C-alpha cells in the first residue's frame, strides 16, 4: 500500500508541487497502477532478467572523433537567460541554516 507521505516524498524529489487533495488522489491512483504492474512478478521468475530494452542490441558505440561545429550562439539562444556567454539560472539555495 503506497502511503500519502511516500507520494509527497516522490513529488518533492521530482519537484512537482501537489496540493493536499492532489496527494490524496495520487496516492490511491498510483497504488492501483502499482498493483496492476505487480502482476508481472507472478510470471517473472528469478532466472528471467528484467528487460530494459525491447530491442536485443548491445555495444552501440562511436569512435572517439570530433563531430562538432562551434555554435555557442545558437545553443545559448534557446536559454531563458544568458550572461557573458553563460547560462544564467536563478538562486539555487537560500540562506544557510
Amino acid at each position, binding site marked *: 500500500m503506497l502511503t500519502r507521505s511516500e507520494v509527497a516524498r516522490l513529488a518533492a524529489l521530482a519537484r512537482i508541487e501537489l496540493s493536499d487533495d492532489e496527494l490524496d488522489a495520487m496516492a490511491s491512483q498510483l497504488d492501483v497502477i502499482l498493483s496492476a504492474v505487480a502482476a508481472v512478478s507472478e510470471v517473472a521468475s528469478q532466472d528471467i532478467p528484467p528487460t530494459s530494452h525491447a530491442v536485443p542490441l548491445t*555495444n552501440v558505440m562511436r569512435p572517439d572523433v570530433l563531430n562538432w561545429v562551434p555554435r555557442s550562439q545558437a545553443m545559448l539562444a534557446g536559454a531563458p537567460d544568458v550572461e557573458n556567454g553563460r*547560462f544564467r539560472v536563478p538562486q*539555487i*539555495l537560500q540562506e544557510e541554516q
Partner: protein
Amino acid sequence: MADELLSFDAVLERFDPVLGLEVHVELSTKSKMWCGCPTEFGNEPNSQVCPVCLGLPGSLPVVNAKAVESAIRIGLSLNCQIARWCRFARKNYFYPDMPKDYQISQYDEPLCFDGEIAVEVGEMAYQVPIERVHMEEDAGKITHIGGVGRIANADYSLLDYNRAGVPLMEIVTKTIHDTGAAAPEVAAGYVALLRDMVRALAVSQGRMERGNLRCDVNVSLMPKGASELGIRSETKNVNSLRAVADAVRYEMRRQGAILSAGGRVVQETRHWNEAGYTTAGRSKETAEDYRYFPEPDLVPLAADPAWVEQLRATLPEHPGKRRARLRTEWGFTQREFGDILAVPGALDTIADTVLAGATPIAARKWWLTELARRANEWGVALDELPITAKQVAEVQALLDTGQINDKLARQVIEGVLAGEGDPAAVVQHRGLTVVSDTGALEVAVDGAIAADP
C-alpha cells in the same frame, strides 16, 4: 566553528581508522562521453556544447568506444573483474550543473569490480581492495554570483557546460582496514598510485590541480576490539595528495574527540578547506533519492572477453612494480627515492633523462632542484617545461666532459628554457665554454697583461 580535536596518538590508542576512497578520473579522450564535442580545458564558456550535452529534447547519447576501452584498462590495472554484460543508469537530481537534470552513470552493474592494489608506504605494503570502477559523465562548471561567491546567498548562478559530458571514471575502494597510524599516508599513497597509473596508461592527464583527478575521502573510527564499523563522514573534493593525508588525519582527530566524549558522529558530507580543516556540508542523500533506473537511451554493454584480453596486452608496466624496479636500478635510498615521488611527474622525467644517457644522480639533481624550482615559479608541471629529458642529458654530458662547469650548466639550462635551442647551440651563441686548453689560456693571459701592464 572550531572542532574539538583529539591528538593523533590518543586516537590511535583507542580506535582503528577505517578508510574508503572514491576517486573521479576525467579521461583525456578527444571527444565527450556521449557526443562529438571536444573535451579541451580552458576554452571560451559554452564553446564546446551541442544538443546532446545540453540535454535538448530529441537528442540521443552514443557511447564513446575509447572511453569504454580506457575504463577496462583502468579496471584491469586494478586487478578487477570485467563485467560480461552491464548497463548504464540514470541518476536523477536537480542541480543546474547537469542540464539534463540527470547524470548518466552506472549503478548496480559497474563495468569493473572486485579488484585489489598494493600501496607502499615506507617499507610496508598495504592491500587496498577495490569495489568497482564505473563510467559516468562530468558536470558543467557553476559560478555563483553575488553573496560571497558561494551557493548560499548568491543572487544567481552562471553555467559553462564545456565540461558537461566529459568522460569520468569513478573508482571506489571497499573499506580499507588495518592501516593504523599510516592511514593518512596510505590514502595519499593510493591516490598517487592511481595518478601515476592513469598517466602511464595514457587515459588521463591525472592532474589534481586541474581537477582531472578528484578524491572524496571517507573516514570512520572503530573502537579497539569492536567488530562493527563506525559512522563515517565523507569529505568532498580533496584536491591534492597532501590534502588527502591531512583530511584523513583531521577527520580521525575530530571523530576521535566526539566519540571519546560519548557523542555520535553525524553521517554527512564535509568540505575540505585549504587552511587544513573540514566543515559540515549537507546531510548525505540516500541512493534512493536519486531514483536510479536503467538508462533507456543507451543499450547494454557486453565486453567481449577476447577484446578484454587484447586490452590486457596493452597495459604498461604496473606503476608499483616500475617504482620498485627503478629504485633498485638507480640505487637510491628510500628517502632519496621518496623525494622523487613527492614531485608530480619527476619519476617520468628522470627516467627519460636516464634513458637519454645521464646518470640517475645527475638526472635526479637537475629535475629536483633547478627545474623543479622553475616549474614551481611558472606554475607548470615538470613535463610542461620547455626543456626535454634529452636536452637535460645533453647539459649533463657537456658538464661531464668538462666543456662547461656547474655554474655554466645552469646558464645553459636557462638558455634552453628561454627557447635558445639545444644545449650545444646555447653554449655556442652565449660563448659559455670553459677554456681548459692551457696554451690558449696562457696566450689570453699574456695578451691581457700586455694590453694593461
